[in-house]
């Protein structure tokens, strides 16, 4: 019986933890929506010069993606070292690829 109550306690502890996690995820969702709206507004109103807009858009996108990866997909949690390592590897290869194709392709 003692075992049982013990596991119930850990269960409620875990439940509480999951609830807190869920709140964080909701906050990150709200922020993602805000960033999306900012990005669209900046482009739709044409308030800024192209030179400034593109870096801003990219930064907003990267922050959003970080929220997805770290909060929604739990990459910040423990037991995610290997997934994180391989995602970083994939991102590194991705950056090289995009840079290679985008910068050094002539006509």
């Amino acid at each position, binding site marked *: 019986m003692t075992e049982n109550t013990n*596991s119930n306690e*850990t*269960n409620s502890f*875990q*439940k509480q933890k*999951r609830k807190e*996690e*869920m709140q964080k*995820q*909701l906050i990150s*969702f709200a922020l*993602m*929506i805000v960033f*999306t709206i900012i*990005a*669209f507004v900046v*482009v*739709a109103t044409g308030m800024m010069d*192209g030179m400034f*807009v*593109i870096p801003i*858009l*990219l930064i*907003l*996108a990267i922050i*959003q*993606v970080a929220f*997805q*990866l770290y909060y*929604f*997909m739990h990459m910040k949690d423990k*037991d*995610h070292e*290997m*997934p994180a390592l*391989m*995602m970083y*590897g*994939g*991102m590194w*290869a*991705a*950056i090289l*690829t*995009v840079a*290679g*194709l*985008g910068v050094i*392709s002539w006509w």
Partner: protein
Amino acid sequence: MSHDHSLNPETMPNEPEKATLEGKNKFLGFWFFLGGETVLFACLFGTYITLRNSTAGGPTSNELFGLELVFIMTILLLSSSLTSVYAMYHMKNNDFKKMQLWLGITAILGFGFLACEIYEFTHYIHEYEFTFRSSAFGSAFYALVGFHGGHVTFGLSWLIAIMIRNAKRGLNLYNAPKFYTFSLYWHFIDVVWVFIFTVVYLMGKVG
């Protein structure tokens, strides 16, 4: 039959998706697959960036894209990402009914996204004669956005298959990893979409 018992314990562990070795393997393998998919989409993005001004006299990105529809699509897909987070939340609380409910909402939002995309493509083809074959820009656009749409389609079929398959028997340690990997896949689709709406649509509007 000791085996069946081990997959249907009386109390679910805290992380049912990683409670068995098979589950751990699936979890890790699927993450690695997503690492590879990152490179796959990077290649398509790179191709698009190289060819985005090669319109061959056809419509340019600025003339084509309308932001309203893309904004709706973005909100649909972002919300579906959140609903699948809810589904996983209920999976960890071992509440199968609520998980199915949220997964169902995810599927509906996904279909909404897909419908918008199909409308968008037919619109471009019929109104602007902007096709896969009309210019290098067209090829690159449809390849990139189409690959993403194909991923959405595959994800929806996958989701519906596992939802129907497990509808009657509920959650156990054998199918929990399947639901979890699906949610990872669905988030990844959203990650790619964030870059698509930024690089293709918004940057296409800026010039």
